[in-house]
C-alpha cells in the first residue's frame, strides 16, 4: 500500500510507550467510573430526598455539569483555578473533571433506575420488617441494577473514549502519547489507527463484561433462561 508503513504500524502496535498510555486510559476509566458511581448515588439520593435544599443542590449540580463541555471544565480546573490560588496536578484535575461528569450523568441514570422499582416492592420489603437500608440493599438496588446496567455500560464505553479529552491538559493517556510519537515520527495515519485499535479493544472487552453483568441481574425476568438454569 502506497504511503502506508506496515513495519511502523506493527512496531507501534506493540510499543510499550503507547501501551502504557492505553493502561493510563483504562486506569482513568476505572477510577472515574468507580468514584462516579459512588458520587452519582449520593447525588441521586440527594435529588430524591424529601428535603428541598438537598434536592435543589443536586439539581443545580447536574444542571451545571451537564450544561457545560468537559473540555471547558478541565481547562477551568487545571488552567483557570491556579489564578485564584487553587492548584491541581494534571492527574488530579483530570480525575476531578471526569468524576464530576460521571457523577452528574450517572445520578440521572441511577435515579431513574431506583424510581423504576414499583412502590409495592418497598412496601413488601418493609412489611417483612426490613429497615430502609436492608430494603435498599436486598430489594431495591438489585432490581434497579437491572435497569441501570445498560445505560451505565454505555457510560463506561463513553468514558473510555472521553478520557482522551484530558490530553488537552497534557494528561499522558493513550491519545496524548500517540500525538507525542506523531510529533517525532510523522507516521500520522499508522499511529492514529494504532490508537483507534486500542480504544476498540478496550470498548469491545467491556461489551463482553457488560453482557455477563446484564445476565446476572436479569435473573427472574427471562423465563427461558431461568428455566434452563433450573434444569
Amino acid at each position, binding site marked *: 500500500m502506497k504511503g502506508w508503513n506496515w513495519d511502523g504500524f506493527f512496531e507501534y502496535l506493540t510499543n510499550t510507550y503507547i501501551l502504557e498510555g492505553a493502561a493510563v486510559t483504562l486506569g482513568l476509566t476505572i477510577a472515574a467510573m468507580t468514584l462516579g458511581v459512588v458520587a452519582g448515588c449520593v447525588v441521586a439520593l440527594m435529588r430524591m430526598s424529601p428535603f428541598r435544599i438537598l434536592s435543589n443542590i443536586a439539581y443545580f449540580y447536574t444542571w451545571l455539569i451537564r450544561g457545560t463541555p468537559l473540555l471547558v471544565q478541565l481547562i477551568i480546573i487545571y488552567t483557570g483555578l491556579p489564578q485564584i490560588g487553587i492548584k491541581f496536578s494534571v492527574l488530579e484535575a483530570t480525575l476531578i473533571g471526569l468524576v464530576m461528569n460521571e457523577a452528574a450523568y450517572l445520578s440521572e441514570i441511577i435515579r431513574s433506575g431506583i424510581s423504576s422499582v414499583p412502590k*409495592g416492592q418497598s412496601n413488601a420489603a418493609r412489611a*417483612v420488617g*426490613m429497615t430502609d437500608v436492608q430494603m435498599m440493599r436486598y430489594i431495591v438496588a438489585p*432490581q434497579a441494577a437491572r435497569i441501570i446496567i445498560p445505560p451505565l455500560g454505555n457510560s463506561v464505553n463513553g468514558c473510555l473514549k472521553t478520557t482522551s479529552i484530558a490530553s488537552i491538559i497534557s494528561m499522558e493517556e493513550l491519545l496524548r502519547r500517540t500525538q507525542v510519537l506523531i510529533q517525532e515520527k510523522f507516521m500520522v495515519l499508522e499511529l492514529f489507527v494504532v490508537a483507534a485499535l486500542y480504544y476498540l479493544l478496550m470498548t469491545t472487552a467491556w461489551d463482553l463484561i457488560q453482557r455477563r453483568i446484564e445476565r446476572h441481574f436479569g435473573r427472574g*425476568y427471562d423465563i427461558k433462561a*431461568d428455566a434452563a438454569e433450573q434444569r
Partner: protein
Amino acid sequence: MQPMIVLEDVDKWYGKNFQVLKSCSLTVSPGEVVVICGPSGSGKSTLIKCVNGLEPVQGGHISVKDMEVTGPRTKLPKLRSHVGMVFQHFDLFPHMTVTENICIGQTRVLGRTQAEAEAKAAALLERVGMSDHARKYPIQLSGGQQQRIAIARALAMDPIAMLFDEPTSALDPEMITEVLDVMVELAKEGMTMMVVTHEMGFARKVADRVVFMDGGEVVEDTPKDEFFASPKSQRAVEFLSKILDH
C-alpha cells in the same frame, strides 16, 4: 383478654385537604378474623396499612399486642416483623426464587441461619401446596400461585397477626379458591386476621365480624351473621346488594 389490634380514633390525611380516614376505631381480639369491606376508595387499604405503620397517621392511636404503632419512638421494622401482610398484587421479589423470597426476611430480619430458613420455607411450601415450585421465579408462576407464596413469605416470620389487602381481587376467578383455601385453613388454626375483601363467601365461612367502611369512616362493625341478615346502615345495604348480585 388483651386485644391483639386496637385502632382508636384514627385520623389520616393525604396532603392538607383530603381526609382519608375519619376517626376510625376498631378492635381485633386474638384469634379473631375481621373482614373489612366497602366501596372502592373508601380507605380500606389505607386503614390496613396503618396497622403495621406502612402509612403514618395524623391522629389517634394504633397498637398491636403491647406495641404502640403510633408512638414516636416505635421501632417499626421490629413491629412489622411480627405482623404478616399480604397485598393485592402479591409483590413478590421478582429477582429472587420462591425459596429466596420466603427466606430473605427470616435470615436478614430474624437472624435465622440459611439452613433454618430453608427448612421453614420447605415446610411452608408444602403447606400452601407449592413444593414443586421452590426454585422457580415469581414470573414463572400464576397469580394464584404467587399469592400463596406471598402468604408463605409472611407466615415464615411467625407472625402474631396477618393483614390481607384484597388478596384475591387481582386473580382470575379459577384461582381465587386456591388462595381462599389457604386463608380459611389459617383462620381455623386460630390466626388473628384482618382481611380486606369482597369475597363474602369467605366472610360467611370464617369471619367473626364484618366491618363496613365508606368515605373514610367505619360505618358498621357487626358480628358476621348480623351483618348479612340485617345490615344497620342504608349504605351497607346498597353495597351488599351490589356485590351479592354477581
